[in-house]
């Protein structure tokens, strides 16, 4: 009998250490704590401790998911970890995590290297595995520690990004109507240099030159080993591709914008989400901004937003959502999700 994939449960996990706007304002003379909140919509971010990895954060999220009781660890027959800060160059962090979590050894496991679009891509892979009968319970872990890539004196990214993880269980269901999909994807590698850690891979290995600090026109300090974001290019890309993705998804699904209860977009920062909201002509109460206490957690922003919406009772009755992730790659993806 044909099965469809659905999300059974979500759990988020954040490192305990907090980086507040007050701490940041003390480092950046031009910006007050209020200005940071006003511009970014972020009051604080959680930051991994030295030695605390994305794998550790993913472990915490999965343990919380199992503790919630809807999914047992023995149900899991496939683990997907989306991260850009793996524990090792090799082996695959998902393999290590599957063992640490006590997942069955007859389960599959793989890593996906994507950023802000990663959760939606992960859902598409999980749906594919389940609806082809290859798996029945996929544990999709999203976890990142961008803080480890950020120079302390680069306010362009340090104000925005927070570390965090989420665990999402996608399971087989007998419901003939698919709860997840359709999907729309997009990739534009010509914009790779706009959001990048240039050094540390094999294209530009770490050496003396990659450790040289430079100061940009906005007084931000970084080296080639740190995260660089060209905010103007990323904003232009987002304003170009997210509306197109929304339009394609509506065409592909035959749905109207009015039939979508919530547009859950990658929680990049408040000014970007508000610019998108205006451009998409979506009222504020249908485009949640759930990042005030966590910042931009990369591939975990959408599941953390879903968890927060569920906590606030917004998903108490069945809802039709549009999810859109967009960012580093450049990469983007959208899908519909019925809760």
């Amino acid at each position, binding site marked *: 009998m044909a099965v469809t994939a659905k999300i059974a449960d979500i759990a988020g996990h954040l490192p305990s250490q907090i980086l507040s706007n007050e701490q940041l304002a003390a480092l950046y003379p*031009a910006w007050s704590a209020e200005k940071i909140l006003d*511009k970014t919509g972020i009051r604080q971010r959680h930051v991994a401790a030295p030695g605390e990895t994305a794998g550790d954060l993913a472990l915490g999220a999965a343990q919380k998911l199992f503790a919630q009781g809807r999914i047992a660890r023995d149900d899991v027959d496939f683990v997907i970890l989306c991260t850009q800060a793996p524990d090792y160059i090799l082996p695959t962090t998902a393999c290590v995590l599957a063992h640490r979590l006590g997942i069955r050894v007859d389960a599959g496991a793989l890593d996906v290297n994507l950023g802000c679009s990663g959760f939606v891509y992960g859902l598409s892979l999980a749906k594919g595995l389940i609806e082809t009968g290859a798996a029945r319970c996929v544990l999709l872990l999203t976890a990142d520690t961008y803080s480890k890539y950020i120079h302390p004196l680069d306010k*362009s990214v340090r104000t925005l990004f927070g570390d965090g993880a989420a665990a999402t269980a996608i399971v087989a269901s007998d419901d003939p109507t698919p709860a997840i999909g359709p999907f729309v994807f997009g990739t534009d590698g010509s914009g790779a240099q706009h959001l990048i850690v240039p050094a540390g891979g094999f294209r530009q290995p770490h050496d003396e030159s990659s450790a040289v600090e430079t100061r*940009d*026109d*906005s*007084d*931000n300090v970084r080296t080639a080993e740190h995260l660089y974001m*060209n*905010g*103007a*290019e*990323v*904003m*232009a890309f987002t*304003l*170009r591709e997210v509306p197109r993705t929304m339009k394609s998804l509506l065409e592909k699904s035959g749905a109207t914008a009015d039939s979508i209860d919530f547009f859950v977009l990658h929680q990049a920062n408040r*000014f*970007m989400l508000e*610019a998108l909201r*205006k*451009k998409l002509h979506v009222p504020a109460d249908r485009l949640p901004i759930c990042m005030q206490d966590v910042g931009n957690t990369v591939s975990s922003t959408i599941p953390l937003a879903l968890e927060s919406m569920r906590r606030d009772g917004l998903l108490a009755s069945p809802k039709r959502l549009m999810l859109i992730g967009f960012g580093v790659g450049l990469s983007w993806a959208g899908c519909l999700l019925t809760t």
Partner: protein
Amino acid sequence: MNTFYEGLAEILEVDASKLSPEFSFADANADWDSLAIVSTIALADDSFNVMLDGKALAACEKVADIEALIDAARHRNA
């Protein structure tokens, strides 16, 4: 240009009545930094449906320079 000036005043953190084409960011000690540039890209897209280039914006010294970029972009769109 009114809503554009209001938006720009908010971005530059100055009173909207002080803005004119000759308003110079350096003279007013206004922060024309990467965040202001990103916000201006969103504002111009919302107000005039044009996409401005970040590098060209970074080179702007006064409001008239931004307006010239917007005019050029509108001609390209037309």
